């Protein structure tokens, strides 16, 4: 459900969660091509093993794109002002990611009424993989 306005939103409000399908190799190959990130560590098992990893793993920016979807489902992208994420853990094959967020603060930034959101992605074991904030302007 999209927020009607700044006044409708309260600190602590939760964004509707976004559940993703389990990470598989096809997803990583598609995202590698679409995002321009051709680092073989995400798509070539042999390369990943030589780099000391047990297998290929998800691109950090795939997780951030998913968190972006969480935000733009809640508020139109044209209202997004900032988007800052820290990559805290590796998202591996088979991880089932849930993106979630909540309203941290209602503030005025540059003459606009904005809300600061805490957003994150976590796997099925509750391990946080990416965490950060988004700033959105609301009418």
């Amino acid at each position, binding site marked *: 459900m999209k927020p009607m306005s700044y006044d409708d939103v309260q600190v602590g409000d939760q964004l509707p969660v976004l559940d*993703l*399908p389990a990470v598989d190799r096809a*997803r990583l190959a*598609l*995202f590698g*091509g*679409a*995002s*321009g*990130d*051709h*680092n*073989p*560590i995400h798509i070539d098992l042999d*390369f990943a093993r*030589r*780099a*000391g990893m047990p297998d290929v793993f998800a*691109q*950090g*920016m*795939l997780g*951030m*794109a*998913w968190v*972006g*979807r969480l*935000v*733009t*489902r809640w508020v*139109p*992208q*044209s209202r*997004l*002002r*900032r*988007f*800052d*994420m*820290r*990559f805290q853990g590796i998202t591996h094959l088979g991880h089932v990611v849930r993106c979630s967020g909540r309203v941290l603060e209602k503030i005025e930034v540059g003459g606009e009424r904005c809300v600061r959101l805490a957003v994150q992605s976590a796997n099925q074991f509750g391990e946080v993989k990416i965490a*950060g904030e988004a700033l959105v302007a609301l009418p």
Partner: protein
Amino acid sequence: MIDKTWIGHELGASELPIEASRLRFFAKAIGEDDPVYTDRAAAQAAGYPDLPAPPTFLFAVELDSGAVDRMLELLQLPLSKLLHGEQSFTYHQPVCVGDTVTVRSCIEDIYDKKNGALEFVVKSSRATNQAGELVAELRSVLVCRH
């Protein structure tokens, strides 16, 4: 150790025309099901001139151009040791199909932690459109694990 004299180094400009086929491919890759990102009529109904580039799409500009690869070579950072630590976007204007985006980056900082076991490279970027207007600023923290 990464040579810290690269701090302040400017990467060459990278230009990327924003095309519908690429944005639809990106939407498919991230499972995007909002028609605003794939259907021109839906995008226009939402107030965009054409399909908008999703929030993280501009990260592709310097990957496509090879600017990131050249920077890693310059800093002698092997892909096998590289992790993405942080990523930030500040948005100034929407970017849509038909726009051509130019990204110019600078190596803002290089530092290490844990007695050099982890090295960090901070790259900051400005993205402008064909009218020379600032559309977004990006900041990436890359981590090299030894």
